[in-house]
């Protein structure tokens, strides 16, 4: 049966693992543009990343954006996931939650640009209703990036939470209610502790996707909203591939660490 796995393993080793190897290899050389004489393998790119506050700040910004988006998504998603998990017929709900996932991020970002622009829908409404006088800066900044990213990642969080909430028998909530627990107490003492596994899975997944996302950030961000994936893209555009590779290695390490945490979580689930 292992024979059946050969094609995919060979394919992924050649075209998935090997490219990552090439990236790591590239990260150990200086750009031929900067050092035409090629001094051989060096950790200079990493030294540059870790030694310069400008780049460290970008790493921190990346993580901060991840935390913000993950927190927002978690809070927004939980009630929806609950409703979805407990819905009698969920066909339409699932369709509505999944359909944004299959529409290209570029197009969703376009929608946000029309909504959040200086003369966009939101500003027009705000001004027309007299809430604000001058248009607010809703995009090309952290606000726009956070809104768009939360939007992109919300369905993942909802589905991760719902699949776990679904497994919590409704009779536990019923029993808690009859024993005197109000809505908040039922959430706090029954639902939340029992859905922590889903919260963990959703949080790692969304965080990982958030720190690796780049289309929404490129389109709705501004000069200040520099995060690792965007910096990598800029470096590639500047043909500074070797430094881009080092940045990629940094992002890869963070991602793999998260992937490890996630797979551990899955393992405990499998053996439980």
């Amino acid at each position, binding site marked *: *049966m292992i024979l059946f796995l*050969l*094609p*995919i393993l060979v394919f*992924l080793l050649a*075209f*998935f693992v090997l*490219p*990552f190897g*090439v990236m790591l290899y*590239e990260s150990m050389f200086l750009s031929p543009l900067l050092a035409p004489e090629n001094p051989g393998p060096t950790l200079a790119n990493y030294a540059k990343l870790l030694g310069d506050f400008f780049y460290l700040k970008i790493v921190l910004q990346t993580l901060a954006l991840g935390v913000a988006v993950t927190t927002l998504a978690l809070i927004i998603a939980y*009630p*929806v996931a*609950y*409703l*979805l998990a407990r819905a009698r017929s969920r*066909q339409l709900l699932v369709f509505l*939650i999944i*359909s*944004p996932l*299959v*529409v*290209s991020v*570029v*197009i969703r970002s*376009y*929608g*946000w*640009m*029309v*909504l959040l*622009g200086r003369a*966009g*829908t939101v500003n027009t409404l705000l001004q027309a209703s007299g809430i604000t006088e001058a248009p607010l800066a809703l995009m090309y900044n952290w606000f726009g990036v956070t809104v768009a990213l939360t939007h992109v990642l*919300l369905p993942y969080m909802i*589905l*991760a939470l*719902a699949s776990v909430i679904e497994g919590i028998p*409704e009779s536990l909530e019923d029993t808690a209610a009859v024993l005197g627990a109000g*809505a908040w107490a*039922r959430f706090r003492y029954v639902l939340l502790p029992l859905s922590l596994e889903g919260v963990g899975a959703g949080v790692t997944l969304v965080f*990982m*996707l958030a*720190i*690796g*996302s*780049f289309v929404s950030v490129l389109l709705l961000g501004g000069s200040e909203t520099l995060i690792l*994936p965007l910096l*990598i*893209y800029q470096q*590639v555009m500047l043909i500074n591939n070797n430094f*881009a590779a080092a940045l*990629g290695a940094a*992002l*890869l390490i963070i991602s793999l660490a998260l*992937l490890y945490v996630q*797979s551990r979580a*899955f*393992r405990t689930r*499998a053996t439980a």
Partner: protein
Amino acid sequence: MMAGRTGAVLLRVYCAAVLLFLSLPIIVAVGVAFGADRIARFPPRGFSLHWFAAALMDRTFMGALATSLELATLTTIGTILVGLPAAVALERRVFIGSTALETFLLSPLTLPGVLFGISMLFFLGATRWGLSWSGLLIAHIVIALPYLLRTTLAVHRGLDRGLEEAALVLGASPWQAFRYVTLPLLKPGLAAGGLFAFLTSFDNVPVSIFLTTAQTNTLPVTIMSYLVNQDFDATVGAISALQVAIVLALLYLLDRIYGVARLTSLGA
């Protein structure tokens, strides 16, 4: 548990608001295409199909659309060719206890696309393969594979292993048991996985953007370049509307064939 009548109503209203939030940018992106105005705004002013005509006449957009359709189709075929044997192996539960292998096979799904994009770019450079159609196709197959595998897993979670044994007991050869029992059972999973592979390729930007050339620009990458240049004209809306129509039609098809709820990790 019903959280009281008011509570239940509040929960429903809240969820409706979130679902609106989820579909809002898509509604907007599609909506602007129907305006009479050149400037993209929502709600659109007036009504016109002019921008659709403009998009359909636009060589760049139409070329990119054709590229995307062709690439997505080839990706689907390639993904099934590479993934089918693995899907069969998954069906036979070779994977029990090997979460590490499963994590590895599904990792292209979770690792940032931008990482794979530049890695592939460096790989194609280092091997002197260069930016090419075949390189782009292979990259798309890599990112589509996990979807095929995951769908097959979702479909066959809980599939009755006894069926194949029953076929063997009834006198079928192992090949016949596979051909007449296992394969038909695999089919819906493969169909759904194939559709997902198509959608993945058709939507992708973070990988494609590093690997496309002027000749192989895909539709999302082309739209992206318009947006980066802050050119929001309504023609972009029209071509977006077209893209959305295609993917939603495919998703609907997926739902008909298979039931979208079953593709999530939710129970039936």
